[in-house]
């Protein structure tokens, strides 16, 4: 075990990527799934180990090939990403357990080796995005994750051919986003000569000339990342991609993909951009804040008018990402803290919702629309109640973790005296009731009567793990808040260590 520990930081990323190559051509779907599970259990144990290392020794910098930064590539595990790393490992394991039956009914068993291979590639690359400390290396991971996501999404064409259009759309928009990011990297590199995040900060604080070019570089990087993390108005690829992907895939992406990228987004905002405080303020107050508010309302209102439930959830994601960026646009500790809290909580909530809807999708063998699920609360009670729990959390009722998010967002807004925004956020959370209640009404209070069907424990147990964790973190919120405060403090206070 010890030989792994030294390289644990790299292994959490490299291991899934390498195992992916092994399982790609395994014909047995069960074996492929089993290897994936074993890999991810190992992944989780490494993450726990990393967390313990972090809590006793602080920030971990891993240098590839022992080349010290800025000459080589390095990973950085600090307060900002340690919490997400842990959540990520745990969540992908749960999702993978859940994915088996879903894949079996949406993807031909002969393809599931390839599907799990792409699945591991997506996991490894997203983890790389979380950990990397090199701005160009991030681009490579962005591309791996984009290509594997696109392939997985296009597998949804087995049930609906629109998945192909969604995948192509994502490919084009995603590539534009990634290229914007690289242009930004180019500008930043041209002015500083470095690619390492920490060194970039040091270099930038030394150069006083060419601020406009650096500002432009940062803006390009941010725009690229905003495309990738579906920040309004650059979100157009997300709803079709999430709603036509195979259900298990939607779960993974909705919960984690955008969050991983958002982590790097705030890193650039608060670690690099903060050197140019004037620009940062302008960007936050006049661009990010209004965009987030528009995202919240547009996402919510479009979601209200959706009939297809996966699409509805996808638009709700746009609004929820809006909440996260809204919190991040408050330039102090409380705002960033709230943003991190909501990143954790929304990952759980949206993951749980997509899981439950995914189960309904495979039992229906069709698109999950408001009409088609009428009375399914009686037919599939266990799954439906899990959906109810997640949905109540999405609205932000007390005793669920959604409430904790709301609490911290309100606190951050209040301490910055943004009272109008508080009103708008409160209003939007009430609007969220409308679209969620449309689902509940159809599920539980429909005139169609069904006998309860026996549900598959392999699917509902993972769903309920998420649902229970939503309640657990709603009542005992200290874990998530602690992770978030470590993250926000190391981001705001200890920017470069």
């Amino acid at each position, binding site marked *: 075990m010890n030989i792994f520990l030294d390289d644990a930081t790299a292994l959490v990323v490299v291991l899934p990527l390498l195992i992916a190559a092994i399982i790609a051509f395994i014909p047995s779907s069960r074996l492929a799934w089993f290897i994936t599970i074993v890999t991810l259990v190992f992944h989780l144990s490494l993450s726990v180990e990393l967390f313990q290392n972090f809590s006793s020794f602080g920030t971990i910098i891993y240098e590839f090939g022992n080349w010290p930064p800025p000459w080589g590539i390095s990973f950085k595990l600090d307060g900002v990403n340690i919490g997400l790393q842990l959540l990520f490992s745990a969540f992908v394991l749960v999702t993978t357990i859940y994915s088996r039956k879903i894949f079996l009914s949406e993807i031909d068993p002969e393809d599931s080796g390839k599907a799990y291979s792409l699945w591991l590639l997506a996991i490894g690359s997203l983890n790389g995005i979380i950990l990397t400390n090199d701005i160009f290396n991030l*681009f490579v991971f962005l591309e791996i994750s984009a290509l594997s996501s*696109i392939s997985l999404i296009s597998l949804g064409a087995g049930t609906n051919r629109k998945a192909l259009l969604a995948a*192509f759309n994502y*490919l084009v928009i995603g590539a534009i986003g990634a290229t914007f990011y*690289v242009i930004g990297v180019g500008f930043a590199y041209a002015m500083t000569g470095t*690619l390492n995040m920490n060194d970039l900060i040091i270099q930038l604080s030394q150069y006083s000339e060419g601020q406009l070019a650096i500002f432009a570089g940062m803006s390009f990087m941010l725009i690229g990342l905003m495309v990738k993390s579906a920040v309004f108005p650059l979100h157009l690829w997300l709803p079709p991609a999430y709603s036509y992907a195979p259900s298990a895939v939607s779960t993974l992406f909705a919960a984690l993909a955008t969050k991983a990228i958002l982590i790097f987004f705030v890193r650039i905002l608060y670690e690099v951009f903060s050197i140019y405080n004037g620009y940062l303020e302008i960007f936050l107050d006049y661009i990010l804040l209004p965009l987030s508010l528009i995202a919240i309302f547009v996402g919510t209102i479009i979601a209200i008018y959706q009939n297809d439930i996966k699409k509805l959830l996808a638009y709700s994601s746009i609004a929820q990402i809006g909440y996260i960026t809204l919190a991040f646009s408050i330039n102090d500790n409380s705002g960033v803290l709230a943003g991190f809290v909501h990143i954790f909580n929304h990952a759980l909530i949206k993951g749980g919702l997509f899981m439950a809807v995914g189960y309904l999708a495979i039992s229906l063998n069709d698109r999950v629309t408001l009409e088609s699920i009428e009375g399914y609360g009686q037919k599939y009670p266990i799954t439906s109640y899990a959906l109810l729990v997640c949905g109540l959390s999405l609205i932000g009722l007390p005793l669920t973790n959604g409430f904790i998010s709301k609490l911290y967002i309100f606190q951050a807004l209040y301490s910055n005296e943004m009272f109008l925004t508080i009103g708008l956020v409160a209003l939007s959370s009430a609007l969220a009731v409308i679209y969620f209640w449309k689902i509940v009404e159809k599920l539980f209070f429909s005139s169609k009567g069904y006998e309860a069907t026996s549900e598959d424990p392999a699917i509902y147990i993972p769903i309920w793990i998420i649902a229970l964790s939503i309640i657990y973190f709603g009542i005992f919120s200290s874990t998530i808040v602690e992770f978030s405060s470590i993250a926000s403090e190391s981001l705001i206070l200890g920017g470069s260590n």
Partner: protein
Amino acid sequence: MTDFLYFWNHFAFVILMVSGLFIIITSQNYIKKIVGLAIFQTSVFVFFVSLAKIIDGTAPILNSVNNVYSNPLPHVLILTAIVVGVATSALGLAIVLQIYKNYGSVEENEIKKEELKENS
């Protein structure tokens, strides 16, 4: 005049990038969109390689004649980026083939029309 020559690469970067974007947005043919994407990405490659150049420098291969070398790091980055770009195009082409199989067309506006018809 020489300033203009020095500036020409940056100018080309901007023009290429914008025309790539323009082709992606306006053209309805999926293949052409992929080509537009390739042009868009190539603009960045040109930009990076231009950054690396030093006047009177040579290719960054150590020799005894010259001591000034162009910057090798952007070259490395662009090597990666080229491969990534081609990989993206390849995947895009595969998707386009599947789209053709399913829809019988590779023109975006036609497919959208068909989708609308199907929905109504």
